[in-house]
């Protein structure tokens, strides 16, 4: 049938050692019962989410290999058995700087490093570190549109920007665009949303929210099959708003504490006994119209 990666092969991939950690995401541990879905030609595939690489960050106590972790992640993706259909970076590609020239330098360096990825397509969305200080001007010059949508093998992907407004809002213009983008889709269209900050109120005391994120969630609620992948909080996190799961990805620079678990949302220091601890990326296998499977990968 349409399944390219069959269950046995996948479990084998997930089970092998070498720093491969397997965690099934909330609500994501059920495989499609069959390959036929409403008679539509669908095909299984997977993509990779990388997040919060903060290129240009310096802080030896937090990551003494800040200038090498991104390359390590690129090498890890290139070493995957089967190349993903695409790779998406969910924001904070670069670490912020007040110097507009330095910002562009970091973006150019980041772009050169990720051009080594042996994948057909690389998608980007901005984080506040990339886009908040100049409203996304430099970001757009290097990485293109701040928000956009595309279709891939029966899934509608939507990239939302909740950072180029320094107040962390999607804003009325983008919300109207989202409404128009969704309007033409049947209610059973599978939708995957990429965003940097959580769309829901994860933890307001640490400002882990998007001020008008609920408006986007309300629009998405009309669809049966929606999932959100985001970054910003530098840790794996799974949450449901109604029937919509939200999955936060690990960072590739330093981990942050679980929401409210520490007095400050300060980076967790580097542990020399466990280098790269808490850093990683994820493979997301898509079984269109039915399900997804999230496989967390660690760096070693």
């Amino acid at each position, binding site marked *: 049938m349409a399944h390219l990666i069959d269950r046995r092969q996948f479990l084998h991939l997930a089970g092998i050692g070498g720093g491969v950690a397997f965690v099934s995401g909330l609500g994501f541990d059920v495989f499609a019962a069959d390959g036929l879905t409403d008679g539509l030609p669908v095909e299984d595939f997977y993509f990779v989410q990388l997040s919060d690489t903060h290129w240009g960050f310096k802080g030896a106590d937090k990551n003494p290999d800040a200038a090498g972790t991104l390359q390590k992640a690129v090498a890890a993706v290139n070493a995957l058995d089967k190349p993903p259909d695409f790779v998406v970076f969910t924001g904070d590609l670069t*670490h*912020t*700087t*007040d110097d507009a020239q330095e910002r562009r330098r970091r973006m150019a360096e980041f772009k050169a490093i990720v051009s080594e990825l042996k994948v057909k397509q690389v998608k980007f969305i901005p984080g*506040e570190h990339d886009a*908040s*200080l100049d409203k996304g001007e430099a970001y757009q010059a290097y990485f293109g549109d701040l928000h956009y949508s595309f279709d891939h093998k029966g899934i509608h992907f939507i990239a939302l920007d909740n*950072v180029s407004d*320094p*107040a*962390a809002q999607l804003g*009325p213009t983008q919300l109207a665009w989202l409404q128009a983008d969704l309007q033409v889709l049947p209610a059973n269209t599978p939708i995957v949303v990429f965003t940097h900050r959580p769309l829901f109120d994860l933890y*307001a*005391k*640490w*400002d882990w929210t998007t001020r008008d994120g609920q408006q986007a969630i309300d629009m998405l609620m009309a669809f049966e099959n929606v999932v959100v992948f985001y970054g910003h909080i530098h840790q794996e996190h799974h949450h449901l708003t109604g029937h919509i799961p939200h999955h936060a990805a690990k960072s590739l620079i330093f981990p942050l504490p679980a929401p409210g678990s520490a007095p*400050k*949302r*300060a980076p967790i220091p580097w542990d020399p006994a466990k280098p790269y601890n808490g850093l990683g990326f994820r493979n997301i296998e898509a079984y269109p119209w039915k399900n997804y499977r999230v496989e967390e990968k660690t760096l070693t």
Partner: protein
Amino acid sequence: MNHYLKKCLLCMLLLAPLTATADTGPTVIVIKASKFLFQPAKIELKKGQTVILEFTSSDRMHGFSLPDFAVRADIEPGNPLRVSFTPDKAGSFVFRCDIFCGDGHEEMAGEIIVRDGG
């Protein structure tokens, strides 16, 4: 909603008359925002006692967010903003900048300690 409109809403709901003075009205607490701190960063208040928080910025736009009391404001340079505030619960509450302002933004926070009136 634009910032102006939002601020006006805030005005109608929360803003004390600018004529309020220290001897006739509630105490005015000036909070200065700058990259990347609030001064003062620790404010002690009494439960049930109304104060006026006056926000000023010396460099760029910052935000003030005190989610436990649903208070938030945009702080623009050259445009002091006054907010009337009556804490209705005791405890220690974090406030922070919620307008991304640069490298130290993550650390730009403070604490309001509310003591029981008694």
